[in-house]
């Protein structure tokens, strides 16, 4: 083991270390969730069958035994870890189906929405930032105000406004529960605009602080035109810090998706989560928490590993 470590290039060693830390974080999430659920007041069987549902004492005992609730807590914890490690997310008693199948049938609409929203937000933010960076006070003030409004607008309210205007009054786009690309437009905008506001602030800030940097001066002195300078150097430089925001953006997208999917009655993980929380379907909530923390960890680890590779300035501290 010891002998093989120095053979790896520094970035790979760093990647291995980060991956190990990531596994530890997921394990921590599982642990926190497990003990929160099992130590919270109330009978867990209630959380399994859901509020309003009643079960005979015999059935309750059967459910408890099936879920392993008659075992000591640490044994249950060990079983949960073993189960999750083998990719089994458990069983939803309320919905009467394996959670793995439930989530995999709902993951695609959410991914579609998130990817569409992220792309839209990036395009809007870059456009807004490029068009307003370094302009006069009036332009920048107006841009900053627009961004503040965009950031502050709750996505559910934006969704309601868009629905009212474009679906119910102008009748140009389908309303709730619509399939297909046209049905994706309004939910995407509801999710993308607040994010675009935030990203535009960051990108403009970067663009404006880049202006005095030596590499800009060098490029200018080589006779590079302003447009080429922007596209080839400044913008690339300004987009770099966004990678460190990846985890934050992802969280915002998923949190927003919970609300947007509910407003637009779209299928997806957010809908599942909201209804699972409402009916206190704890196995489904746990599975979604573990799933999202795994995704966060993977994205954050990738960012940490890739960031020094694409930003030479970080190589010294990041990898050593």
């Amino acid at each position: 083991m010891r002998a093989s470590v120095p053979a790896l290039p520094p970035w790979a060693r760093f990647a291995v270390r980060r991956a190990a830390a990531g596994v530890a974080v997921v394990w921590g999430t599982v642990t926190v969730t497990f003990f929160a659920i099992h130590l919270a007041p109330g009978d867990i069987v209630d959380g399994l069958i859901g509020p309003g549902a009643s079960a005979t004492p015999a059935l309750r005992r059967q459910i408890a035994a099936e879920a392993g609730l008659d075992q000591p807590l640490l044994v249950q914890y060990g079983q949960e870890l073993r189960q999750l490690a083998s990719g089994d997310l458990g069983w939803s008693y309320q919905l009467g189906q394996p959670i793995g199948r439930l989530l995999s049938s709902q993951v695609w609409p959410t991914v579609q929405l998130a990817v569409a929203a992220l792309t839209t937000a990036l395009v809007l933010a870059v456009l807004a930032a490029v068009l307003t960076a370094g302009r006069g006070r009036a332009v920048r003030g107006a841009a900053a105000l627009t961004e503040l409004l965009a950031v502050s607008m709750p996505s559910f309210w934006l969704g309601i406004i868009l629905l009212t205007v474009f679906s119910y009054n102008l009748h140009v786009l389908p309303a709730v529960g619509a399939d297909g690309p046209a049905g994706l437009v309004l939910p995407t905008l509801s999710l993308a605009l607040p994010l675009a506001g935030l990203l535009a602030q960051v990108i403009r800030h970067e663009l404006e602080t880049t202006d005095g940097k030596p590499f800009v001066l060098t490029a200018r002195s080589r006779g590079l035109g302003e447009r080429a300078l922007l596209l080839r150097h400044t913008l690339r430089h300004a987009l770099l810090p966004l990678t460190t925001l990846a985890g934050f953006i992802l969280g915002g997208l998923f949190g927003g998706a919970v609300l947007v999917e509910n407003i637009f009655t779209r299928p997806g993980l957010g809908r599942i989560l909201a209804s699972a929380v409402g009916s206190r379907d704890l196995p489904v909530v746990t599975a979604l928490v573990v799933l999202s923390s795994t995704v966060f960890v993977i994205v954050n680890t990738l960012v940490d590993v890739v960031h020094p590779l694409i930003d030479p300035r970080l190589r010294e501290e990041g990898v050593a």
Partner: protein
Amino acid sequence: MTSALIAPADPETAALTTGPLRARSPLLGTAAALLVLLAVVLAFPGLFTTHSPDATDVAAALRPPDGRHWLGTDQLGRDVYTRLVYGTRLSVLIAVGATLIGVGGGALLGLVSACGGRRVDFVLMRAVEVLLGFPELLLALLVVALLGGGTLNVAVALGIAGVPSYARLVRGQARLLLRSEYVEAARVLGVPGWRTVLRHVLPNVGGPLVVLGSIGLGSTIVSGAGLSVLGLGPVPPDADWGAMVADGKDFLQTAWWISVFPGLAVTVVVVTTTLIGRRLQVGAVR
């Protein structure tokens, strides 16, 4: 000194400190005035309306805004404006309560982590890092799944969701302060450790905590409204703004005003608290 303490560490906060925040901007004045108005509405809703928020009038259901019902009526004929005025209290109190819980829990956890030795610090901070990986709304949803919905549980859930970020701030600040000369002096003079923490460390953590809290208030209001939109908030007939949005969701086609105005209220309050919070932050950095 203070500038080093709350200097923005990551691009999100760095982005927050840029923007047109001159000391006497008219925008900031408007925000301050709105905040005062909000406090008055919250304390004396009866001053602003003569209707009752729960009085139903089925004959006047789903009326558009007019002279009698300024913001229209909902599906039960309740006056949307009146419900909005009375809903202020729940919306703001949920967010303020949650922020207090978050700040209190965070301060406790952060101080224990900073003063409790390396092992305690390691365990607590790893736990905080795990929790920080989650967006506030998701963490709050987990707590609501455990406790059930309702006004109090939503405030508790949002509070718990806020604890990690406050804990990280307090722990960082406290560790700096514990190395400062006046804490050293207190130690040399034989002041007990717990007293040093209470008298010297905690008050100095307060400033940045207030700043972070006031910036966080806006997002907490949005998250609280979000939980209510999902039907997890106050139990009817009580309604905060989010619950009003949820009420009107099914009537958008015929009666947009039921949902749109409460959502507008959320947005206005968030913009207001964000402006004030950023101003406090800029002031603290200077």
